[in-house]
């Protein structure tokens, strides 16, 4: 090769190396660019779990706020939120559409155990983050087999074990009836509960009834459970059915000690439709500051939330803890994106998601912090029990868990 050609080739190679070094700091996967980060989200805006749709709206409102304040590291977030109606086949279709047609960087906060179960293998096969899934099923904390899937809420099994421990302590001779949704979410809670009761599970749980999300009502299951003579009721239901269960139990004169799973512990979405006076005495677990709790009436963090709601999501209920939850989860997403800096590859998103150390949200109960690591894909693990007194959730006992 002539000297001139050699010099030209060397110059070109040098230029290429130089320019690649210059852009080496900025790495993008599909969905990310200098100006935008595309994020997909799947929520049940319609169908049997539509009460949760408000979480998606709160998150979208928070993203809007972040964008108005300049975005994350100078990039605006394009939040594409679609409806799956809590129907797994629709979730599969939407996930494919978001990943392959809309080319999002990641899917954030898809809601529901059955919907997420349906897309877990696909997301991991495609190596697209399935981040902060909105369900507490224990199986999302499995970085070894599903490194692209991570949850956010405390695990259902841990929560159910807390209830079991409380029953064993306060009512060791209880006769327990359980109502559960017949899918992975319901069975996850049930397993944790039975594990928590240990050897006494078989003798203490005297009645179990299940329902499908396609059932119009669960009245007959409640009547059946009352007929068993139980004096403790573990209510594993999603909001629409929780409200029905609480109301029916009261109406037929059944007054057991009721433990309600945290996914339905919203005053605005569940207890008010059920009837506040019918919900007195219900015990649940919480990790978020409840908006009705007088203790947080003048709390700085909660006031920030209230101001945010009034400005960006005025239609959202200020009595609904789901809106606090969506706000907190969205803040966690923004923190992960901030930590990514200019390296917006999917791999780095998961790496930063697994690298949250003592991250505090001003809407989490004091003492609860978010921690993740490559072997710990459970951001929030601690909770506290609370009892409803007709107006608000009154917390009692200590914060349980890490």
């Amino acid at each position: 090769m002539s000297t001139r050609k050699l010099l030209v080739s060397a110059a070109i190679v040098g230029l290429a190396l130089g320019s690649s070094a210059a852009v080496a700091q900025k790495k993008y996967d599909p969905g990310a660019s200098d100006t935008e980060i595309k994020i997909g989200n799947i929520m049940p805006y319609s169908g049997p779990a539509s009460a949760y749709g408000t979480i998606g709206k709160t998150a979208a409102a928070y993203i809007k706020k972040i964008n108005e304040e300049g975005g994350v590291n100078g990039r605006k977030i394009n939040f594409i939120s679609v409806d799956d109606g809590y129907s797994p086949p629709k979730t599969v279709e939407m996930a494919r559409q978001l990943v392959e047609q809309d080319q999002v960087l990641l899917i954030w906060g898809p809601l529901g155990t059955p919907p997420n179960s349906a897309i877990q293998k696909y997301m991991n096969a495609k190596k697209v983050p399935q981040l902060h899934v909105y369900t507490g099923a224990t199986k999302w904390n499995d970085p070894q087999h599903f490194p692209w899937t991570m949850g956010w809420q405390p695990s259902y099994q841990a929560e159910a074990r807390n209830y079991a421990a409380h029953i064993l302590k306060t009512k060791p001779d209880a006769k327990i009836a359980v109502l559960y949704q017949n899918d992975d979410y319901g069975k996850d809670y049930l397993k944790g509960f039975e594990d928590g009761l240990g050897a006494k599970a078989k003798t203490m749980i005297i009645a179990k009834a299940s329902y499908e999300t396609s059932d119009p009502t669960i009245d007959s299951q409640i009547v059946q459970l009352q007929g068993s003579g139980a004096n403790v009721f573990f209510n594993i239901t999603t909001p629409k059915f929780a409200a029905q269960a609480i109301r029916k139990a009261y109406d037929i004169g059944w007054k057991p000690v009721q433990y309600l799973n945290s996914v339905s512990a919203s005053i605005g979405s569940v207890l008010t439709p059920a009837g506040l006076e019918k919900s007195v005495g219900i015990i649940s677990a919480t990790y978020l500051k409840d908006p009705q709790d007088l203790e947080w009436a003048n709390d700085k963090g909660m006031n920030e939330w209230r101001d945010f709601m009034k400005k960006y999501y005025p239609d959202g209920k200020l009595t609904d803890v789901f809106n606090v939850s969506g706000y907190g989860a969205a803040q966690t997403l923004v923190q992960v994106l901030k930590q990514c800096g200019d390296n917006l590859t999917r791999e780095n998103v998961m790496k930063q998601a697994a690298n949250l150390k003592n991250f505090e949200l001003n809407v989490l109960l004091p003492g609860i912090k978010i921690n993740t690591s490559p072997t710990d894909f459970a951001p929030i693990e601690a909770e506290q029990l609370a009892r409803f007194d007709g107006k608000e959730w009154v917390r009692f006992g200590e914060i349980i868990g890490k």
Partner: protein
Amino acid sequence: MTPASTALSAPVSAASGKLRYLGYAVLLLAVCALPFLVSNYRTFQLTLVLVYAIALLGLNILTGYNGQISLGHGAFYAIGAYVAAILMDKFGVPYYLTVPVAGVVCLGVGFLFGLPALRLEGLYLALATFGLGVSMPQLLKDKHLEHWTGGVQGIVILKPDPPFGLPINQDQWLYYFTLAVMLLMFLLGWNLLRGRVGRSLIAIRDQPIAAEAMGVNNALYKSLAFGVSAMFTGVAGALGAIAVQFVAPDSFNIFLSITFLIGIVIGGLASIPGAIYGALFIQFVPNIADQLSKAAPWAIYGVFMIGFMYVMPVGVAGAIRIALARIRHRTKGGGGSQKS
């Protein structure tokens, strides 16, 4: 309901026959080239079009050619899908073997359903099939079958890889696989319908008493029609399950059965190409409606349906046939030959 019964006309002359075959060859080449010209997601959608085309041909054999209305074909689609999914997931059967097995199972189930259905006509048969379609999702969620069906969570299956290390991706391979099965099924259907069986089915549809008097065994042919129709739809269900990689009871609700009926009516009753037009409609029009209106996509879908029915009352296939006949009539001048 009297759609044209001669959808399988012979070519008018030898020359136009050769031209027709050339046309088909060009069409086939274009169809084969598609996966390389469009995105993977579009290829996936086109694979579903092929799947629906097989299902619609199945329903058309029963409803279009034989006059038995079925509002429950989603159930056969579901059975085919679950047979494939369970065989692949629980028994490790390779995907290509699940398709014929699904077909055979549905042939049996369809025939068995067709036997008692012999007593029913018109609306009553429609209601009976509706009952089948509406109960299928709940049957699939039944606790006793959960161990097999996976309950409401459904079954996730893995996408097959292209064989022999072909340099195409999984979506493209699935497209060709489905295309091959579709061509085979269409050939089967065409062969069945253009011969004695086809004529018997049409005779039973138009004049059942006369057909019986002419020696057609109504009971046998009507049940067979159910069986064969279910077989086609079952094969489609199996292919659909493999393409989507997921089966769950809620995928196969009553709306699917109604969608199939919409497909054959809009595509063209008693028409083999009608199945393809219908499949294109039911796959793409909901997406178009969604893009046109986020708030009321189904209203837009309804407008499309009504529009199609108004403009093309004999379906797309019928409209094309009429248009072609008019062109032929005009090019032949005042000679006025019969439309074929």
